Every structure is written in structure tokens, then in C-alpha cells.
């Protein structure tokens, strides 16, 4: 690509859909997080190809796409969890408040405190009580302030809309409650640390419709305090809860825009095919 790319219209740019030119991506000062030209390899396999994405504060950003398109991997780049996979390699930048979280001096542990994560399968710590699960983040990172711990646990469980259901059973194991409750417990565990961004990797895929509805309501609530990025298989879910949607296919970001616009008036044919169910 040459410098003339700056003059092409929005339409053309969307049809090209991959912007390989790094200089073209400017830092968006209003963004909470921003991915710039992110490439990821697992060994020889190129799983993310020059992906750019902006996450605005107090919004829900959904990432949709067929299985294996790299959306979970992309999500894991936002808190450096993909580094845990052996032979993962990454280039590009992920900015948090305009600062690159991959800079040499930055400890991933610090990033993960600011960017929380909720996983596909509810994974409360089996050896800990409900109370300890919520307090785990504070205890494990050595930032507990004894007296306030009760308050923090209560507030987190309330925010996760779980308090009313478990407040009498705080001493019971975290794995003793139902799957949907466990997932909300995991969300409470993540927000107890008061992160700035919450990443969710298909948080409802292991849950029944009623539990899913509760979590979706909760995600919309969370938007008031956090930026939420959610990976989902469920396009209806994305259209219900998100403000922005990114469609990924084969490791590339095909289209990114406001959710309504993307679902009602997609600019790229591939996106249209996917959301109308022609493939995927």
C-alpha cells in the first residue's frame, strides 16, 4: 500500500478490509484499549493477521466469527494471556490508555490486574469457598486490606447479581453452586479487583438460556463502570448486548463498526453472508 491510501473512500477501505500499513493506524486518544496491527503465530501457524480494533470506555464490544477464526486468541492478547501458550509469537501493539502493554518494562501481571478476564467454562477455585473465590484476586496479588475485604466481597457479589442467592452460603465451596451462578461468581471474582476492562471469552456458551439472560443483563450493567470485550458464537447475543461489533474470519478482522450498522447494513459481503447464516 502506498501513501495514497489516505485518500481512498471509506467504502473502498472496507472492501480491502485489511490495513497492513502500520502508519495508517493512528493512536485513538479516546480509546480505552486499542489493538494496532496485531499478528500472532503459534509455531508456524499464522493465526491473527494484522488486526486493528478500538475499544471505547463504557461500551460493550463484541467479537463474532466462526470457530477457529482467532477471536479467542485475539481476546487473550488484550491481557497477555496468549503468552502462556508455548511457542506463541506476537507482533504489533495493544494499547491500554495509549500505553503499549507489550513494552519490555511492563509486567504482564500488572496488566492482568487492570484487564480482567472471564472464561468460557466457569472456573471457580475448587478448594476455596464462595467468599474466598471473590477475595482470591486480592489475596493472590497481596493487596488485601483486611477490614474492607467483607465490603469488597459483598459489593462484587452484588454487582454480579449473585449476592441475594448466596449470601447465606458464603462458606460453601465455589463449585457447589449451579453453572450459571458459578459464572457470575467468576465475574464477581474479576470485578473484585476493580479492573478497567473486562474480557469475556464466550461466557454463556456453557449455560442454559435463563442463566444466559442473567449474564447478558449483567454485562449491560457492567458497562457503566467498565469497558467490556466479549467473544461470542451467538450473533443474537452480540446484537442484543454490544455497542460495537467486530467480525473476524480466518484470522482477519473483516469488519468493525457500530453493532446496529454492522448487523443491519454490513459493508462487506462476507459479513453479510455470515450474519445471515449463509456459512459459519
Amino acid at each position, binding site marked *: 500500500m502506498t501513501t495514497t491510501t489516505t485518500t481512498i473512500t471509506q467504502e473502498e477501505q472496507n472492501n480491502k478490509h485489511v490495513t497492513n500499513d502500520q502508519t495508517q493506524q493512528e493512536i485513538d486518544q479516546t480509546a480505552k484499549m486499542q489493538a494496532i496491527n496485531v499478528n500472532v503465530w503459534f509455531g508456524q501457524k499464522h493465526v491473527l493477521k494484522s488486526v486493528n480494533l478500538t475499544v471505547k470506555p463504557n461500551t460493550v464490544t463484541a467479537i463474532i466469527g466462526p470457530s477457529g477464526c482467532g477471536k479467542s486468541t485475539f481476546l487473550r492478547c488484550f*491481557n497477555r494471556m496468549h503468552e502462556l501458550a*508455548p511457542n506463541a509469537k506476537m507482533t504489533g501493539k495493544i494499547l491500554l490508555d495509549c500505553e503499549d502493554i507489550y513494552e519490555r518494562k511492563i509486567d504482564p*501481571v*500488572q496488566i492482568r490486574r487492570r484487564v480482567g478476564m472471564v472464561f468460557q467454562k466457569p472456573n471457580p477455585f475448587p*478448594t476455596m469457598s464462595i467468599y474466598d473465590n471473590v477475595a*482470591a*484476586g486480592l489475596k*493472590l496479588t497481596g493487596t488485601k486490606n483486611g477490614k474492607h475485604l467483607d465490603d469488597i466481597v459483598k459489593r462484587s457479589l452484588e454487582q454480579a447479581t449473585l449476592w441475594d442467592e448466596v449470601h447465606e452460603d458464603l462458606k460453601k465451596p465455589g463449585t457447589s453452586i449451579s453453572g450459571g451462578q458459578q459464572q457470575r461468581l467468576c465475574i464477581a*471474582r474479576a470485578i473484585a479487583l476493580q479492573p478497567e476492562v473486562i474480557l469475556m471469552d464466550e461466557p454463556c456458551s456453557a449455560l442454559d438460556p435463563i442463566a444466559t439472560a442473567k449474564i447478558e443483563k449483567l454485562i449491560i450493567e457492567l458497562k457503566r463502570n467498565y469497558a467490556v470485550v466479549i467473544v461470542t458464537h451467538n450473533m443474537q447475543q452480540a446484537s442484543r448486548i454490544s455497542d460495537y461489533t467486530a467480525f473476524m474470519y480466518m484470522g482477519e478482522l473483516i469488519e468493525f463498526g457500530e453493532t446496529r450498522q454492522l448487523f443491519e447494513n454490513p459493508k462487506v459481503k462476507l459479513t453479510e453472508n455470515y450474519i445471515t447464516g449463509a456459512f459459519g
Partner: protein
Amino acid sequence: MMHSYGFRKFKNHLFFIICAICVIIAIIPLASILFEVTKNGAPQLSLTFLTGTNANGGIGPAIQGTLILIGLTSAIGIPIGILSGIYLSEFGNNKYAQNLRTINNIITQFPSIIIGITVYGILVLALGSFSALAGAIALAFILIPIVTRTTEESLKLVPNNIREASLALGAHNWRTTLNVVLPTAKNGLLTGTLLAVARIAGETAPLIMTIMGNRYFFQGLNQPLAALPLEIWKDALQPYPDVQARGWGAALILILIVLIVNIVVRIATRSKMKT
């Protein structure tokens, strides 16, 4: 159709019966040993038998010696074994660790007499005498690889999503291992460690080369020490029925010690969380 269903049901029963028979075959020698030891050993038990020296018709020094050996060996071996196991499981994705794992597995299979001779060569000769310390170190050489291996295996059974959950909260690796992975693997760790302790409690060959035996109570870490396996071995070689009977008693006590250690550790580490 009915015929094939009946046949499948028959196979199911047959499989169950074969398994049950195998269990019985496995239990027969074990049960008969327990029965013989209890039958011949139980009449020996008395306060003098437990606390007196051989001269008084007791095995006090041997009981004391075995307890000291178990304690000392555990103190040396269990921390090293568990930490090595953690290394292999949590950080062992490299060539160095792979070699370590192979060597560790080979040492687990070593005949214990070889370990006894090794410690005799490097410690007993250097210090100039058989000693309690040499015995504990020889037993630790047997204990460490077993504990290392069982630790690694039990930690590997901890699902990865539990580790991820902890790391995603911003916990460091060592915190994750210590506060999340180890507690989750606790049962496996305990069983493995207790089996290893039970094994070293009954080891005889390395003790012959290291602690030698003693007719008196504990006299210092650098002095020869009595121990139950040695007591049993020596008593069994004697032609006198009363001494042989003492050996049976000692065997019963050794089994009881292993049993009691097991029960006490299980109770002490039982999860306090109510389900």
C-alpha cells in the same frame, strides 16, 4: 435381538466377575500377612515391650529409631521432593527438565541396597561411623524421587483453566502454584507422599549399610541407631523362639506406625470447608 442383548449382558457380568476375582487374588497375600503378623505379634504387646530395650525384652530403641528416621527423612526429603515435582510440572517444559525427569524415574527404580552402599561410601566412611544421619540421608535418596514423581503427576491432573483463572487475576506464577494449584492437588500429593513414607519406614537394606543398629536408645545423630526393620531382620535370623516372637511384635508395631501416620496426616489436613 434378544439373544444378542442377553449375550452383551452376560459379557458385562463376566467382566465384573473377572475384576472381582482379581481383587480377591491381590488381597489374599496382603490379608494373610496382616493375619499372621497380628496373630504372632499381638501377644507380645505390653508396656515393657514398647519401652524397654532388648535386654528387658522390649524393642523401645527400635521404635524410637524408626520414628526418628521417619521424621528426619521426611524433613529432608519431602520439601525437596515436592519442590522438584512443582518444578517439573509447572516449569518443566524444557530439555533440562526432561532429562531430570528421566533420571528421576531411573532413580525411583534403583535397588535400595545400592543407595545404602552409596551413602556408606560418601558419608559413613567420611564421618568414620555408622550414624542416624547417614540412615536418614539414604532414606531421603529413596523418598525424594518418589515424592517428586507423585507431586508432578498430581499437579498435572489440576485442570489448566484453574491456573488460567488465577493468572488472569494478576497473580504471579509462584502464588498460583502455592495458593491455587497445590491445594487443588492436595489429595494426590498426600497419598503419594504417605506411600513414599510408608515405603521408607519399611526399608531394611540401606539401613544395614548406614545406621547399623543399636541396642540402646538414641545417642546422637552421628551415632548408630536402632530401627524396626533391622530389629525384625536380626530377630528373624535367631534360632530362639522368644526372640523370633519379638520380631513378630516388631513387625506388627511397624505396620501400626505406618497406619497411624497415615490416619493422623489425613485428619490433620482434612479440608475445613463444609460442603
